[in-house]
C-alpha cells in the first residue's frame, strides 16, 4: 500500500528533535550538525524563496541555526514541530531582511499546531506534494494574495494598493486561502 514517494509512508527511528535540542543545550556540536542536516534545506529554501538571493538566504540560514545554537530554549516542545518552527522563523527573518527591519521582537514567539512531522523526510515530501496541489487549485486571486503576504512580506495595505482590491477583501482572501489549505490537508 505504501509507496516510497507518492504513498503515505511514515518513517520513524530518527533521533527526536527534543533530544537533539537537549544535547545542543549542553554544547554538543554533533547534535547541531544533525539538526542542520535535517532542516537546512527547509530553512534555506524558504529564505531563498523570500529573498531570491542565495547570499542573503545563506545569511538567514546561518542566523537561524546560530539562534538555535545560542538559544535552544527558544524552542520548547509545546511550540510544536521544530522543523515547522524553523520554517516560520526563516520566513520571518527573511521578511525582516527584505524590509530592512530590525528583527521582530516576537520572531521566535511562534507557537504552532501542526500535525506534520517534518523530521521525517518522507512525510515532508508528502506534505510538500499535497500543499502544492492544494495551492495550485486555489482561485488565482487567493493564491496570489497569499503569496504576496507570505513570501513577499507585503502588508494588506500594500497588496490592496497593488491589486486595487479593498483592504477587507485582501484580508479575507489570505485567511480563506489558509483555511482551504488546512481543510484539504486535514482530509
Amino acid at each position, binding site marked *: 500500500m505504501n*509507496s516510497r514517494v507518492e504513498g503515505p509512508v511514515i518513517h520513524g527511528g530518527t533521533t527526536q528533535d527534543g533530544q537533539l535540542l537537549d544535547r545542543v543545550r549542553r554544547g554538543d556540536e554533533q547534535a547541531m550538525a544533525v539538526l542542520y542536516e535535517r532542516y537546512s534545506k527547509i530553512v534555506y529554501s524558504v529564505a531563498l524563496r523570500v529573498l531570491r538571493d542565495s547570499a542573503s538566504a545563506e545569511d538567514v540560514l546561518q542566523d537561524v541555526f546560530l539562534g538555535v545554537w545560542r538559544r535552544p530554549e527558544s524552542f520548547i516542545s509545546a511550540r510544536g514541530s521544530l522543523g515547522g518552527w524553523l520554517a516560520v522563523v526563516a520566513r520571518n527573518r527573511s521578511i525582516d531582511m527584505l524590509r530592512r527591519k530590525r528583527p521582530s521582537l516576537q520572531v521566535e514567539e511562534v507557537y504552532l499546531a501542526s500535525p506534520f512531522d517534518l523530521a521525517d523526510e518522507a512525510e515532508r515530501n508528502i506534505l510538500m506534494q499535497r500543499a502544492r496541489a492544494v495551492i495550485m487549485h486555489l482561485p488565482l486571486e487567493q493564491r496570489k494574495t497569499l503569496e504576496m503576504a507570505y513570501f513577499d512580506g507585503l502588508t494588506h495595505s500594500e497588496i490592496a494598493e497593488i491589486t486595487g482590491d479593498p483592504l477587507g477583501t485582501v484580508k479575507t482572501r489570505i485567511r480563506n486561502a*489558509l483555511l482551504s489549505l488546512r481543510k484539504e490537508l486535514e482530509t
Partner: protein
Amino acid sequence: MTIGNHIPEDDLVLFALQLLPEDRMRQATIHVETCETCRSEIAKLQGDLVAYSMTADIVAPPPEARERVLRQVAKEPKPVLPPDPEPVPVAVVDPPERTDRLRRSTDRPERVDRTSAEPVFATRQRRGFQVEAAEEDEREKPRRPSRVPWVLAWTGWAVAAGCSFVAGLQFHQRQQIQSTIAAQQAKLDDVTKQSAHAQDILATLTAANAMQVTLHSTADVKPGTQTATAMAAYLADKGALVFIATHLDPAPIGKTYELWLMPADGRNPMPAGMFKPDAQGRARVMMPQLPTGIDAKGFGVTMENEGGADVPTLPVLLAGT
C-alpha cells in the same frame, strides 16, 4: 482592534504573518499573551503557514554554507553543562545528631540503594541547603586554613586554569571530529539506502521472471490527445512492484489515483499504492509494501478519495493484464 475581547479573525492571520502595523501588533501581542482562544487560533494558523512554506521549491544550501554555520557554532562554545548525574549506589549514613533530626522530619532511609538513590551531589546539596546549613558552616569553619601564602593559592588557580584550558581545547576538538563523522555517517547512510532502493527497482525491472504489464486507458480516445498509459513490472516472489504512468490528468482536489493488484486466484483487488501525477502528467509507485507470493493476473488504476480505499471505486481508469 478586538471583538468581544478577541482579535478579529482576519487580523489574527495578519498577526501570524507578522504583518499588522506596529501599534496593532503590540496591542495584539499583549492580548494574545493572556487569551488562550486567540493563542490557539494563531497556533493553527502558524501550522497552516508551515504547510504553505512547503510549497517553496526545495533547494539544498551550498556545502560551504554548512561549513560556515558549523564553524561559527564551533567558535561559540557553550558553557558545558554538567551531564545529568547518574544514580550511584552509595551508602549514606547520617551523623547521629543529624540522623535524629532527619528521622523526626522525614522518613528517608539511612541507606540509599541504587534503585532509590538520588545522585550523590544532589543528596549532598539537599543536605547542605535544607538541613542545618548553619551547623554545617560551623563545622566547616575550623577546617579552613587560617593562613595560606597567596603565591601558593594563585599557583593552584593558574594550574587549574591551564588544565581547564587544555581540557576545553581537547573537548572542543573531539566535538568537531565527532560532528564531522556524524554528518558523514548520515550522508553515507542516505546514499546506502538510496543505492539499495535503486538496486531493488533495477532488479524488478530486469528480472527474467518479472511480470511486465502495460496498462491502457479505458476511456474513449479523443482525437489529437494523448491517452494515459502505464507500465508495471512485478515480481510475485519478492512482492516487488515498479509502476510508471504517463499522460495522466491531474487528480482533483481531495482525490488521488490508486493502483490495484488483481490476484490471479480471483481474490479481491489489493491496494498497491496511491499516487498523484506531476505537472507533466507523470507518476510512479516504487516498491510499495506488498505481501510476497501473490501471483497477479493484472493491474488497475482507479480514482479514490484522499487517503485511499479498501476496495476500488469504479470506473477503472487504467487496466492491463
